[in-house]
């Protein structure tokens, strides 16, 4: 295995749309290990920040830098969208697709996709059309598809929104296993319990800025600004 694509550095990076700055300028570093949780009110820029890091949004200002050349970094990361994007294929075809794209042979891709389907609890649904899956199953499919190439870093945008407690725990277990296998995790969430369980680092976003950051275990509790405290208490923060 070649060296890690991390750390990831944002240097005064900003996303713009139609003359407005949606995010930034942001300076931050995603170091080699851990689970980064991104929190903040609706519209604070969590999705935009994740998309910027992943390269789905261009940095209109500043830079997004990986430890390796960008072209290589792009192939070693994955993203789980706020609303899972399902291909019009069956479950196996969806999960195997990234492998096929990157040159793995069909039979091998199929075998590994079946393994992953079992791992995320979709072992009984291999041949079903992805569109027939429930919300929780769709998220699991998206997760398996994102993890199948064992990315160095995985971005997740509220993967457990709309899921019940059990499905949320199942997805967290998969994430913990991926983390232990060496995948760096950066996740936006509105679930503070989940943030508490997983975070080794927290970014609190407000109006497109990283308003406050904290790291280490129990990092959520270390957020100290009045805005962050109010947000954690469930007050409305603007």
């Amino acid at each position, binding site marked *: 295995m070649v060296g890690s694509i991390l750390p990831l550095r944002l240097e005064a990076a900003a996303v713009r749309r139609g003359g407005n700055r949606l995010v930034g300028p942001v300076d931050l570093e995603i170091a080699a290990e851990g689970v980064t949780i991104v929190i903040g009110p609706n519209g604070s820029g969590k999705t935009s920040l994740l998309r910027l890091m992943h390269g789905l949004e261009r940095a209109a200002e500043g830079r997004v830098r990986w430890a390796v050349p960008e072209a290589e970094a*792009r192939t070693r990361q994955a993203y789980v969208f706020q609303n899972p994007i399902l291909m019009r294929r069956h479950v*196996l075809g969806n999960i195997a697709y990234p492998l096929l794209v990157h040159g793995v042979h069909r039979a091998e891709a199929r075998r590994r996709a079946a393994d992953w389907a079992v791992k995320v609890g979709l072992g009984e649904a291999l041949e079903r059309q992805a569109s027939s899956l429930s919300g929780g199953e769709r998220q699991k499919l998206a997760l398996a598809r994102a993890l199948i190439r064992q990315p160095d870093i995985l971005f997740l945008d509220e993967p457990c929104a709309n899921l019940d407690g059990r499905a949320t725990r199942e997805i967290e277990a998969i994430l913990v296993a991926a983390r232990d296998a060496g995948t760096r995790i950066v996740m936006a969430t509105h679930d503070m319990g989940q943030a508490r369980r997983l975070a080794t680092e927290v970014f609190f976003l407000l109006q497109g800025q990283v308003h406050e950051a904290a790291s280490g275990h129990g990092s959520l509790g270390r957020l100290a600004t009045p805005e962050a405290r109010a947000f954690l208490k469930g007050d409305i923060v603007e």
Partner: protein
Amino acid sequence: MNEILEGLIAAARLVATLDRDLTEIAARSLQVSVTAVVIASALGMPLGAWLAVNRFRWRRHVIAVMNALMGLPPVVVGLVVYLLLSRSGPFGVFGLLFTPTAMIVAQVIVVTPLVASIAHQAIRELWADYHDLLISIHTTKSQRVRALLWDGRRTLLTAALAGFGRAIGEVGAIMIVGGNIDHATRVLTTAIALETEKGNLALALGLGFVLIALAIAVNILIHTLSRTERASQW
């Protein structure tokens, strides 16, 4: 009213007796139109998908031209192909004028813009769904086009069937480049035109019913095949 009845009877008699001439021209109609649609699909569908996926300077104009070409008058297409293939034309040496190949060439030109436009419309919607995912997975442009064509195959079938409908019912272009020669280039539509001109209205109408039945049969066949396609295929 009487004529329509006679037409139905003529059609029934032609089909029931498996009239030699009828089966021959019906088979030629199918052969020419199906070949033209297959070629038009092979050209038009990737083109439509490519236009959906790529951003370039003249894209809007290219799409506008493609849409406009859907309205290309077949007679004019026939005339141009005639000039190109005639003995003094640039492709005269191949001796293709008044052959089924010439008819296929003309129909490909008539049908491709239609197939490409419908395919483009369908693929554009699918691309809007897939965009972020395919960018995230770091697909190449040609992988994107292939994924869209494959996953959109059911809607693309509609494009092909629309093309087939236009081809099998087309008369202007193939009349000019084919010449409606008996046992060589006569097809259902040109035969109908000829019989009408000769005043054999019942026979013309009978051929018309056969044409309609053929078009419907092909549509039903293709839809049945696509529905029975196993969902697990990839």
